[in-house]
């Protein structure tokens, strides 16, 4: 995609290429509509493509995401801009929007890169790998992850020293440091917002000691350790590389807690923790896993059975509120908690603590509409003015919402919500023709 496409036009703009955006785009494209996906990240697939196995069926997440992702990426009616952001959306007339898009340079010619990774080997700079949630490092010239789509290298220009090693190593000579930001002005008839969610940042809860104590990790970091594209070939605690044998999960981290500004329940963390506990018991047969919870919310199809299965496997469930976590000399962690069953304050030692971080609203799109206001709800998710009859509608006519952009939900619900959004968009397009 070189140069300016001044007058490009599409039926639908999908902002965000996670599972919700991808599903909505496929539904629309399969029914004959032209779709543009704008994805901020270097790969589409959202969080799902990075997960291990998914509850409650324990399907391998990569295995069910990649076929979707590859179907999306080669669909003739779908155009994808990765590494791109929407700058501004202006409503033109009753059935059209003008969208300004900024495509950030990758410094690699997308069409020519073969994904050989030789640039990666040649690059001398090592920085933290955000796709492995900082568990390991990556190079400044890098392919985001093995199953990224597109599987094309990118140069992280902020960390690049411009040494030129990658340029020399690249067989098709597709590294191009002269690339610049590109701006596009695009005509669109309807919009689906599928920008997903953010993870709660546990640094906001100093009493848990995340960031201070090395053996406290987030659930997303554990998810990466369990995924097929995992950083290590086993489960390690980051402090000293020891294989853990007493694992603790702290549920509701950053959720259901008005003191940190997030009173709602994140809907997924009970279940993904139960899932990870089961996977851990498979990977580390000798390990003890304890889940500290307030309520276990296993409400969906097959969820309660999945919870029972975890209990049957020997996962230890403790109804308890964590007061404070402190570090011992050997790097182990001491959890001080209120055991609700016994109405007592207790302490327990674990060698790794996983914080089951909650779902936080992504507010990226709120400011994109200068003329009309895209309303948010009281938790900063996209507001649904008519959640019962038309859940996908937003405060702006012609703009719809899919997936976790409107609130916490798991993958099955995100997919159904995407079906709902694409369906409303189709009706809208037909009516406003």
């Amino acid at each position, binding site marked *: 995609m070189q140069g300016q496409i001044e007058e490009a036009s599409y039926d639908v703009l999908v902002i965000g290429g996670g599972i919700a955006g991808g599903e909505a785009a496929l539904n629309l494209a399969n029914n004959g509509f032209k779709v543009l996906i704008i994805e901020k990240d270097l790969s589409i697939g959202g969080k799902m493509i990075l997960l291990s196995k998914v509850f409650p069926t324990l399907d391998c997440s990569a*295995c069910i995401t990649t076929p979707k992702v590859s179907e999306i990426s080669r669909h003739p009616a779908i155009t994808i801009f990765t590494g791109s952001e929407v700058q501004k959306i202006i409503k033109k007339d009753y059935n059209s929007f003008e969208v300004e898009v900024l495509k950030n340079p990758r410094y690699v010619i997308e069409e020519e890169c073969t994904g050989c990774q030789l640039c990666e080997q040649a690059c001398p700079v090592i920085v933290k790998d955000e796709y492995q949630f900082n568990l390991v490092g990556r190079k400044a010239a890098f392919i985001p992850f093995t199953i990224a789509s597109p599987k094309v290298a990118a140069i992280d220009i902020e960390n690049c020293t411009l040494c030129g090693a990658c340029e020399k190593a690249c067989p098709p000579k597709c590294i191009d440091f002269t690339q610049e930001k590109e701006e596009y002005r695009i005509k669109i008839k309807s919009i689906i917002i599928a920008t997903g969610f953010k993870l709660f940042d546990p640094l906001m809860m100093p009493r848990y000691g995340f960031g201070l104590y090395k053996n406290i990790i987030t659930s997303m970091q554990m998810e990466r350790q369990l995924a097929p594209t995992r950083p290590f070939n086993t489960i390690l605690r980051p402090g000293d590389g020891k294989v853990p044998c007493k694992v603790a999960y702290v549920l509701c981290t950053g959720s259901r807690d008005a003191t940190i500004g997030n009173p709602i329940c994140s809907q997924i963390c009970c279940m993904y923790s139960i899932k990870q506990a089961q996977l851990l018991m498979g990977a580390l047969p000798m390990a003890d896993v304890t889940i500290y919870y307030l309520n276990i919310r296993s409400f969906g199809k097959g969820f309660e059975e999945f919870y029972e299965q975890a209990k049957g496997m020997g996962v230890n469930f403790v109804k308890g509120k964590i007061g404070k976590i402190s570090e011992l000399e050997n790097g182990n962690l001491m959890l001080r908690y209120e055991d609700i069953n016994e109405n007592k304050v207790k302490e327990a030692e674990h060698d790794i603590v996983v914080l089951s971080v909650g779902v936080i609203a992504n507010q990226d799109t709120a400011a994109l509409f200068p003329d009309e206001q895209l309303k948010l709800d009281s938790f900063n998710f996209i507001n649904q003015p008519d959640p*019962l009859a038309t859940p996908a509608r937003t405060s702006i006519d012609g703009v719809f919402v899919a997936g976790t952009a409107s609130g916490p939900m798991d993958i099955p619900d995100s997919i159904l919500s995407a079906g709902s959004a*694409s369906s409303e968009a*189709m009706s809208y397009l037909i009516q406003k023709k």
Partner: protein
Amino acid sequence: MNKKLGVYICHCGGNISDYVDVEKVRLSVENEEGVFIAKTTMFACGDSNQKEMVEDIKNNHLDGVVVASCSPKLHLLTFRAVTERGELNKYNYIHANIREQASWAHSDDKARATEKAIHIVKAAIAKVRYAESLVPIKIKSIKSVAVIGGGVAGMKAAIELSNLGCQVYIIEREYFVGGRVSQWDALFTTNETGKELVTRLYNDLVKRRNITIYTSTEVISCSGNIGDFKLKIKTTPRYIKEKCNLGELQNAIDACPVEVPDDFNFHITSRKAIYHNFPGEYPQSPVIDIKNCTRCGACEKICENVDFSQKEEITDINVGSVLMATGFDPYTPADGEFGYNSFDNVVTLPQFKRMIDLSDEKLTFKGREIKNIAYIYCVGSRQVEGENKYCSRYCCTSAIHAAINAKKKFRNIYNFHFTRGIRTYGKQEVLYDESSRMGDIYLQSYENDPPVVTGMNDKTVVRINDILTGKREMEVEADLVVLITGMVPRKDNSVGSLFKLPKGRDRFFNEIHMKLRPVETVIDGITISGACQGPKNIMEAVNSALSAATKSYSYVSKGELELEPIIARIDKNLCTWCNACSQACPFDAVKMEEDKTKVFAVINSSVCKGCGMCLPVCPTDAINLIAYSNSEIESMIDALA
């Protein structure tokens, strides 16, 4: 015979290569006859490998392709598409499953898992040598959809399909559409009432010319297949003429001597055999419930619009797809379950919802004013003994919402919640907060120690060992006990058997794959939506209804469909019409035909699934399964031996 084969062996991240030595598999098959390329790959389904395969097939003019990876359920279609993009007919692709069948099944014995994987791949190679190019069967598809059930899910799906230009038939079994939602007053989380919501949807429905609504109508038979289903539907008359004078009607209702429990109010009130709709139930037209009517003629004498001459009608409709939206039933507690039917002040949540709606100023039940209310959660859900293992997901929120509304609407209400751990997931959590702030008391017990309801001289007491206070025994004297009943499949769900829909462990209708194909069923052309698939609140039911509408639309939108050509073929000359195959076929795909010379069996190619059930029963070996010919199967067996 294919002679230039490409074989790809997938690591599946580590899902396969952790237990199967994929390189060893590659080495053991690379010299098999015909194998031209044998590669391993980290993720065969990944975009970059797909690209590489396309190039390999094109550049080398491969004539057969094998990928050894996960279950064909996941990726058969993926690699067929890759083969097609490589400009090779997609039926020259054969899938070998070495994940579910080797690595995962034998994770305890790597050497033998590898050994087995080698055999599986060799068998696939043996088969691909015989693979032939096939063309999909093309059939016509009628641009119309039958929506079974007129609750919120069915109504929303119908509106969407109508927008997309389909002819839609709504088939509702009851006299009125609206489903369960018309029975609820204020709804979580918007406080709109059920009647308002249903009214909005109904007004939208009736202005559309391409939607036909059939009430008091059931499907009695179904034949045909995707693209061309033939349904027979039976409509019970209302026994009231179209136009009806409401004044006279009320007199007629008053005159009716038959009184039956009113289903709409879950039997807390009664109605006559001739009755009118509730607000929120549509169409706004009275009915005579003929099952209970004694034909005494009292109403007929008063109101000239009563018309007992109306007859049952049978209509044939022809549709390309069927969308199921038949909803759920509230669980009915067993006699004695938490005092149900033993104490007269024990009711269910649906009954309580109706009581709130029907009472003004004071909340009364059976003449007594209600102050203390005990709510017992998870009744009929999360059962330890019973078969409903699942959580019904709507009920914690609904119960708390109803309790808040009762407190707001009536004075002196005290709410006591006997829970198994509250599940107000997502934003619904704020209702739980609100009720706690309003002073509602929450108590909790585990499944093995449920609360106990006892009656003591005119009083009903609920007792619990409350784990939230260190297992203290707590007692509440309740004026009313509300059992928070879950969702169960419709009692009469025979329509599912009519369409041969599979059910899940929870006995609700089941989808093919929760994430990849969440609204499709194994019966081609039939989609499922709303609470007939499992417990859902309204938003979730609507989301699934719109997803199902999109899917159903995709079956009919093009007027034509492609079906798998892998089906059975019957050699007329060999067939003696013994009827064995037709009895063996689970899909009714075999029909008898006759010409001048003989009677013989034929396969309906749009119904046959290629399951192969008919093959072994044929005494004259007249049946062959395309793509599973004897030579293919025999060569596979040889490779496995």
